[in-house]
């Protein structure tokens, strides 16, 4: 029997506010344990949460970017369970009335595309973390992360393959990072994903029994875990068994999913409205205000680049990978007026160097204006493309303007036709044998002449002009 996988994803994204969701503590990552804490996030007796307004603003941004309906009034709820990383014994989250509902994102994964519907987006606080010393054995509690704001984005079970799952995740990630509301670093845990997977016979409308997958800390692992789990469920079904509804952890080293122990899973969270917080009200005026601050989103930007700059879809994809790259490219393209050439320089030289030197796009030593000018200097024939590569290298290492480098190195191209003709004549006169060969049909010799001219001009001759003059003179006219 042919089975069809049904996948839904729950994404937790840490919002990069300066302070925590219900107190004034810093959210900075990597501080010594328990230094970013206060009575409120430590859950001491008698303290009360006070909502950080920026958290709502960021969550509304994501809701708008994913076409959700925003609830004008949403409600906080307590999710009750015991764990040492959860200081109050409950997590403040949203349950019955979340901030936003019923949105979608479109994926460009095949010809017709794919729409994944979003069930809801809600706000909540993160828990702290435990550090286990197995040798002692003892566990330490670090509550720096307790109270860091999160949004949870829950999709409908709309995905039908691990590839679609991965594409959906990348899309959400890209939007969050573009909105500058999440760092999106999966290793640091500020973008996390759980998956619900089930199988059903192809054509069957009802869903099969699902399992929930956790502990996947990279895009690759999400896809691998989904692939494994689909194969596992298929095996169970094909061998006449039934899939058990359970939570399974991805084991990266073994490449398998394993069931969580029953004890850890048997939770009744006893959600109820949090009496310490008033409902969150979001007025239309505020929504409009936030909407006006939304940047162009990656998918729209890609489409515009293809349309406006007439560059290939592939280029548009690379150039919109981040807002910094896209902004940089647009400035280069505008400055030089040669969008395709600009794309080649940014994709090849800039991104290559960025990767090689491990610097951030924001710290690129060559300004977009300077690179634009460099491209223009090639275009107007001041320097050759080959010279430009050398100029680029020096610009990268020194941060100097292209004009400065060209002047310093005396790199100005010889574009005086009269002067070049004299050189060409000299070369032709000095190499009669090669002239004979060329005229006898051996056109490869042409390169030899170009090389000779370049050598005599120390590489400063305009290649286009050299070609033109050589062709004319060698063909004997």
């Amino acid at each position, binding site marked *: 029997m042919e089975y069809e996988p049904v996948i839904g994803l729950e994404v937790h994204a840490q919002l990069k506010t300066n302070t925590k969701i219900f107190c004034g503590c810093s959210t900075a990552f990597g501080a010594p344990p328990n230094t970013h804490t206060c009575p409120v996030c430590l859950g*001491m007796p*008698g303290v009360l949460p*006070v909502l950080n307004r920026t958290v709502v603003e960021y969550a509304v941004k994501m809701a708008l970017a994913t076409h959700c309906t925003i609830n004008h009034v949403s409600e906080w709820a307590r999710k009750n369970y015991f764990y040492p990383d959860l200081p109050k014994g409950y997590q403040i989250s949203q349950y019955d009335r979340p901030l936003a509902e019923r949105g979608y994102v479109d994926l460009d994964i095949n010809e017709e595309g794919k729409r994944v519907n979003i069930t809801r987006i809600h706000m909540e606080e993160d828990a702290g973390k435990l550090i286990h010393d197995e040798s002692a054995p003892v566990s330490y509690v670090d509550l720096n992360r307790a109270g860091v704001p999160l949004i949870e984005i829950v999709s409908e079970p709309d995905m039908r393959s691990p590839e679609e799952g991965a594409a959906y995740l990348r899309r959400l990630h890209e939007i969050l990072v573009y909105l500058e509301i999440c760092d999106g670093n999966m290793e640091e845990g500020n973008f996390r994903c759980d998956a619900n997977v089930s199988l059903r016979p192809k054509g069957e409308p009802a869903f099969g029994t699902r399992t929930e997958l956790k502990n996947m800390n990279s895009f690759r692992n999400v896809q691998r875990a989904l692939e494994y789990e689909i194969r596992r469920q298929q095996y169970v079904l094909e061998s006449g068994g039934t899939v058990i509804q359970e939570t399974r952890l991805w084991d990266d080293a073994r490449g398998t999913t394993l069931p969580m122990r029953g004890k850890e899973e048997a939770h009744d969270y*006893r959600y109820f409205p949090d009496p310490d917080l008033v409902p969150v009200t979001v007025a239309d005026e505020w929504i409009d205000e936030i909407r006006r601050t939304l940047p162009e989103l990656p998918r729209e930007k890609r489409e515009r680049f293809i349309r406006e700059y007439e560059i290939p879809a592939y280029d548009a994809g690379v150039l919109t990978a981040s807002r910094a790259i896209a902004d940089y490219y647009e400035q280069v393209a505008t400055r030089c007026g040669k969008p395709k050439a600009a794309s080649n320089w940014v994709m090849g030289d800039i991104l290559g160097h960025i990767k090689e030197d491990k610097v951030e796009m924001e710290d690129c030593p060559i300004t977009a204006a300077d690179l634009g000018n460099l491209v223009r200097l090639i275009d107007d024939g001041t320097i050759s493309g080959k010279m430009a590569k050398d100029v680029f290298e020096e610009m990268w290492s020194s941060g100097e303007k292209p004009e400065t480098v060209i002047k310093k190195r005396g790199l100005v191209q010889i574009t005086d036709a009269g002067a070049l003709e004299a050189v060409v004549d000299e070369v032709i006169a000095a190499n009669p044998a090669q002239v004979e060969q060329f005229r006898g049909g051996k056109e490869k010799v042409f390169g030899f002449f170009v090389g000779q001219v370049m050598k005599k001009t120390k590489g400063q001759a305009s290649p286009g002009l050299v070609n033109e003059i050589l062709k004319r003179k060698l063909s004997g006219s």
Partner: protein
Amino acid sequence: MESHYLTVHELEELLRAGETTSLEITEAMFRRIDAVEERVHSYINLMKERALEAAEASDRRRRDDAALGPLDGVPIALKDLLCTTGTPTTCGSRFLERFVPPYDATAVAKLRAAGAVILGKTNMDEFAMGSSTETSYFGVTRNPWDLERVPGGSSGGSASAVAAGECAASLGSDTGGSIRQPAAFCGIVGLKPTYGRVSRYGLVAFASSLDQIGPLARDVEDCAILLSVIAGHDERDSTSFPAPVPDYRDCVGRSIKGWTVGIPREYFIEGIDPAVTAAVDRAVSVMKDLGAECREISLPHTRYGIAAYYVIAPAEASSNLARYDGIRYGFRSPGERELLDLYRNTRAAAFGSEVKRRIMIGTYALSSGYYEAYYKKASQIRTLMKRDFDKAFASCDVILAPTTPTPPFKLGEKTDDPLQMYLSDVFAAPANLAGIPGISLPCGFTADGLPLGVQLLAGYFEEGKLIQAAAALEKALFTEQRRPAL
């Protein structure tokens, strides 16, 4: 001078006139505490050294003509669930026996800023769960009027301290009657403000949607003075209300002629003590004498109040008390190797049986499959009760009712019968469920000399009306000055 039975406003006058000093008053208070505390046991912890320093600082301000207001130099006691830096805040529980908060509750900070001298922390039912102060880990408090009887609860220590002259006034908290019921039992005045009138920051939570801090004092004017100091919006409590705070003292001494007083017929149920009914009848006739119209009204959902209260309060408590897990502060069961053992044994050893009972009730009420039938239903009843009061206050200025169905009962009388104990809050809890303010004031004595109380209720943020009516009633009711025979 025997200053320990003076009111806050009397002390204020003496201090202002330079006839006494805060140090003198404070030292006298500690002498009084030494004399009666063994019998009454109002306090869990005293803060003598710090109190004497505060008194001296107040006297210096007084000398420099820089007194901070009516509370400057006045000795006040705090229920031991109001967080205080430098002194344990135990909530009457073994779990927090040695817990010293690194912060003051907002109400405490406001008292300190007003120059009040804080004497110590008063006894209470564990985590405010009780109506008799018998569930405290630190032993029972006795009613100063009859040492064989309870002072009421949960703010029993705050009430007995005022009644026994161990402080000028005190702060308590009222979740389902915990200020008004002990005030009635101890023959003093106790005011529960509107939910949101006083910041809950630093008040250790029992049931967050019901808890309110309020004053217990010897007369209505003292309650007004304290309320004006502690009320107001607090950035650290999102549920505190951003309305300006009037000087409630201005409402004392004004006529209530022409007011309408509602008498809810549902508050005169079977089983109510005849002495209580007689006291209320007397209050009604005094109100009429004052020119108010007393009219029978109906609050039809009253009879569901106690049931709704005993679902909502334990539900919230079960969540609020989850933080006492032995991980970060407070009691921890020693030598545990496994996490679950640590949780179980810590909570088993550190919580008393009433707290455990309510955690279990609340956990059950919120459980999957029961939520709709219990918590949700109780919340709906709560809405209906709010509507009852809204309707009543559309035609009444205040409501007059008994505070409790009986006079103070005997120690141990109801400890084995939680339902009987819970019913002692039957007239008090509706105000908490609705969020409206209420005040209990003395209204005579039983034949055995036990104090009786009567309760007034008003609409949201109508503390001014409440105080105006209570002060008028208090003045007109006054017949004789009685003190407990200690």
